[in-house]
């Protein structure tokens, strides 16, 4: 922060602050969106409460539209979802109702996020969808788990904005351990350039926060299904990702 004089204070430059604020707002909206879904799941159907849930969902969507403007305004990607070109073809088609192949694919997902609340919610959402979940609260912890047994994880769901080692750095270290690692990035803000760079380095996909719980499940399922069928997302044969 710049030098300040008494009686007034100076904030970080807008171009530093606004992306950070947008990240934070989208993270918080993500928490609201997830809690609404969780709550509705365990709600015992009191008559008349559907409209409240409906109201909550609509408000989250409205707020998300506003933060999306903010993200776009400061050079963040306005893409909601992005898949590696090699995996792209299947993202529009719905995931199969049940695992169709006999080939064994692990259903273990590692979730990396420094926000404990986000971690708890993602864990519950994924567990409900039938995934085994390992939570890591920092990039360091994620790498520790991954180094011990990288074959255990079908996919890593990675946050971008984390203290001391961010998602991109974590991603690069993960790839150094296993170049075939499947990483989905989920964050409320990422610059277009940065996303392109990570996609070119073999990121399997990206999902912008806030999303509904079913959206992240759909994306994870379709990535895993695709990989099971022999799809690949390696950096070596990646197409150029358009911005």
């Amino acid at each position, binding site marked *: *922060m710049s030098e*300040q004089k*008494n*009686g*007034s*204070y*100076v*904030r*970080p430059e*807008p*171009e*530093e*602050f*606004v*992306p*950070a*604020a947008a*990240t*934070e*707002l989208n*993270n*918080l*909206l993500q*928490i*609201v969106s997830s*809690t*609404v879904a*969780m*709550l509705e799941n*365990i*709600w*015992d159907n*009191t008559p008349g*409460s559907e409209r*409240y*849930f409906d*109201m*909550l969902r*609509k*408000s*989250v969507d*409205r*707020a998300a539209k*506003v*933060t999306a*403007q*903010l993200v776009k*305004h400061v050079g963040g990607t306005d893409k909601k979802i992005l898949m590696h070109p090699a995996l792209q073809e299947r993202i529009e088609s719905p995931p199969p109702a049940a695992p169709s192949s006999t080939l064994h694919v692990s259903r273990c997902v590692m979730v990396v996020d*420094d*926000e*404990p*609340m986000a971690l708890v*919610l993602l864990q519950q959402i994924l567990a409900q969808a039938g995934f085994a979940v390992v939570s890591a609260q920092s990039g360091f912890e994620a790498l520790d788990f991954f180094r011990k047994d990288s074959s255990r994880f079908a996919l890593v769901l990675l946050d*971008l*904005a*984390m*203290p*001391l080692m*961010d998602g991109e750095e974590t991603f690069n270290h993960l790839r150094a351990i296993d170049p075939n690692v499947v990483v989905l990035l989920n964050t409320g803000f990422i610059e277009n350039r940065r996303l392109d760079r990570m996609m070119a380095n073999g990121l399997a996909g990206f999902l912008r926060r806030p999303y509904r719980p079913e959206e992240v499940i759909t994306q994870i399922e379709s990535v895993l299904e695709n990989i099971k069928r022999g799809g690949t997302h390696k950096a070596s044969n990646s197409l150029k990702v358009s911005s």
Partner: protein
Amino acid sequence: MTALVLQAFEGLANNRIFEGIETDLLEQIAPSVHVVQLAEGEVIFREGDPGDLLYLVGEGSVRISKSGRGGEQETLGVIQPGNFFGEMALLDGQPRSAMATAVGNTLLGTVDEPTFQHILELAPSRLHMNFLRSVTERLRSVNSHFISEVMRSERLSLVGSMANSIIHDLKNPICIIRSGCDLIGERSNDPGQLQLLRMMDNAVDGMLAMTQELLDCARGHSELKCETVTIWHLLDELNTRSLCLLPGKNVQFAKDIRYDGEIRVDFARFVRVLCNLIKNACEAMPQGGILTIATDLIDHEVVIRISDTGIGIPPEILQRVFEPFVTHGKSHGTGLGMAIAKSIVTAHQGKISVSSVQGKGTTVEVLLPVPAFAALP
């Protein structure tokens, strides 16, 4: 010419304006150059003063400024030793267009108009060359300064107008989420559901605070609106805002009030800072613990301490705890919250520091000057 003046002139003879001019010519000029000593902050001339001298900087430096937005002096440039200023008024006979102030102890040589004309006659081409070069350089620097200022203010106003509409557009859905939470909460007494609602409520608080920060950021400089309040009033406000939530988090509250007099603060901002610190303290005690607020008066300063019995902060994070969060990410614990806290406390002419022992807890200490100290018995 005294020895002192000669010695002083030696520094001035190396001035850029004399570059390439022969020594014997300079010796002719030396007696007409007057040497002045100035102390830090001394004004050399003001905007609008008649301009009749050219100044050569020997030691120290000189700030050239012009009154800008809100009547504040905006720096156009700083003239370093070996350079000169004030030539414009001599050339066009207009009053001074900017203000010149000494930065640190400064030694100047002044050249009046007849002497200036004399130098011009002695070494016309050389002097014009030196002049042109210097003026061009200055023009360039002022230009780029001006452009970056314009760009900055454009950026600020762009973000500002955007932030205003964001606040407006975001507040509605956020408030609806809050009332939705309340309505659903009234229909439930299931602890699991109530916990989810509390998480949602916290997230809503976070969003409201962040929209406020965005608005402040868009305004760039924020002036404090200070009022005098007692420590009790402050505690009462903290109680309604965040302390009342402590039992639900299994956190006990302890207070140690040794100063209960007045403080002078921007109440809304200061309360936000303390709420943030209380929130951090609670997050450090996920299994519960004790949160202590202590106040005291030490060496004419009001001390406000917020301590927890939580997990503590690792040393590598502790030393970076006040850094703004571009590199960090989140607002809790290590992020933006602390950077903003520091900025706001500093604006109150106060200080903030953090000490922590891992596994034992963290203490944040805020020091504020006592309001109207002289009025105290």
